[in-house]
C-alpha cells in the first residue's frame, strides 16, 4: 500500500528534470545563475535554496535556457524582464539604489574622519576636571577601581 501510494505521489507531483542527470558544466552554470535569482514568493531565498514550487518552475526555466546556450546575463535579463528588479537578490546599481549601495561606505568614511578630527594628539592632550566634585570622584573611583 505504502509503495503504491508513493509511486502515485511521486509521479503526480514530481517530474524528473533531465538537466539534473549529472553535474555538467551547464548545471554548474545554472546553479550560479539560480543563486542570484530570488524565489519571488519566499523570504530572501534564492531559487536554488527554496522548496517552493514556483522556485522549482524558475529553476526549470533557467536550465532550459542554459541548455539552449543562453549566457548568464541573458538568463538573468530574461527573468528581470518578467519579474522586474524584485527577482534580483543583488540589487542593480542604478539611480534608485545609489543610497543603498553608497551610504554604508560614506558612513564608515565619515565616522573615521570624525574620529580622526576629534581625537587629539598626545602632546595636546590635557585632562579636564571631572564633572563630579573631588569627594564624589574619590568614592566613585574607589568603587570602580579599574585594572591597568
Amino acid at each position, binding site marked *: 500500500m505504502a509503495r503504491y501510494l508513493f509511486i502515485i505521489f511521486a509521479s*503526480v507531483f514530481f*517530474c524528473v528534470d533531465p538537466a539534473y542527470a549529472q553535474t555538467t558544466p551547464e548545471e554548474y552554470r545554472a546553479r550560479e545563475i539560480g543563486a542570484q535569482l530570488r524565489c*519571488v*514568493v519566499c523570504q530572501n531565498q534564492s531559487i536554488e535554496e527554496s522548496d517552493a*514550487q*514556483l522556485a522549482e*518552475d*524558475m529553476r*526549470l*526555466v533557467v536550465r532550459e535556457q542554459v541548455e539552449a546556450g543562453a549566457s548568464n546575463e541573458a538568463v538573468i535579463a530574461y*527573468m*528581470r*524582464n*518578467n*519579474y*522586474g528588479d*524584485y527577482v534580483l537578490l543583488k540589487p542593480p546599481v542604478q539611480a534608485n539604489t545609489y543610497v543603498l549601495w553608497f551610504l554604508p561606505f560614506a558612513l564608515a568614511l565619515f565616522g573615521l574622519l570624525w574620529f580622526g578630527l576629534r581625537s587629539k594628539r598626545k602632546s595636546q592632550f590635557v585632562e579636564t576636571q571631572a564633572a563630579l566634585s573631588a569627594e564624589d570622584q574619590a568614592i566613585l573611583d574607589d568603587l570602580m577601581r579599574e585594572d591597568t
Partner: protein
Amino acid sequence: MNLRGLIPLAGFFVLVGFLAFSLTRDPSILPSELIDKPFPEFELANLAETDTLDASLLEGKVSLVNVFGSWCVACTVEHPQLMALKDETDLQLVGVDWRDTRENANRWLVRHGNPYDVVVFDPHSKLIVPLGITGAPETFVVDRSGQIRYKHIGVITPEIWDDTLRPLVESLQAVQ
C-alpha cells in the same frame, strides 16, 4: 533643547512615517513588468486536448486571461464572479490551468461551472515564468492587438470588476 539632540527624533519620525505607510501595502503583491508588452509566445494544448493553442488566440478580441488550478482555494472564491462575466459581457475569457491534471480540472469545472471560452492546459508551468506569475489566481487584461494592458493579483471581487476592470475593458473594446 539643542538642534543636535533633535536629529535622532527627526530620523525616528521619518521611519515611523514609512512604517505607517507600509502597513497599507501588501508586500506579496508584485506589479507586472509586462504591462503594454505583447503577451508572451507559447504553444500548449487546450484542456480538452483537441487543439494546440498559441498567442494568436488573443488577437482581434479583448480578452481576460485568468490563471487558475483545481488545487487553488482562492480560485473557488473568485469563480462565481467569472461565471457572471461570462453571461454579462462579450469578453473572451481565457483560462490558464496551472499545475493541474486534466481529470481534476475537468471535475472542478463541472462542479463550479465553466466560464472560459478556451482553457490553456499548462501542467508544467511553461507559461507561468514568462508571465511573471507568483500565485493563482492572477488575471491579465489583453487588448485586441495582443498586448497586456493590466494585471490583477488575487481574487476578482465584484468591487474590483466594477471599479477597475470593467471601465478598462470597455474602453479597450471601444477602440476598433
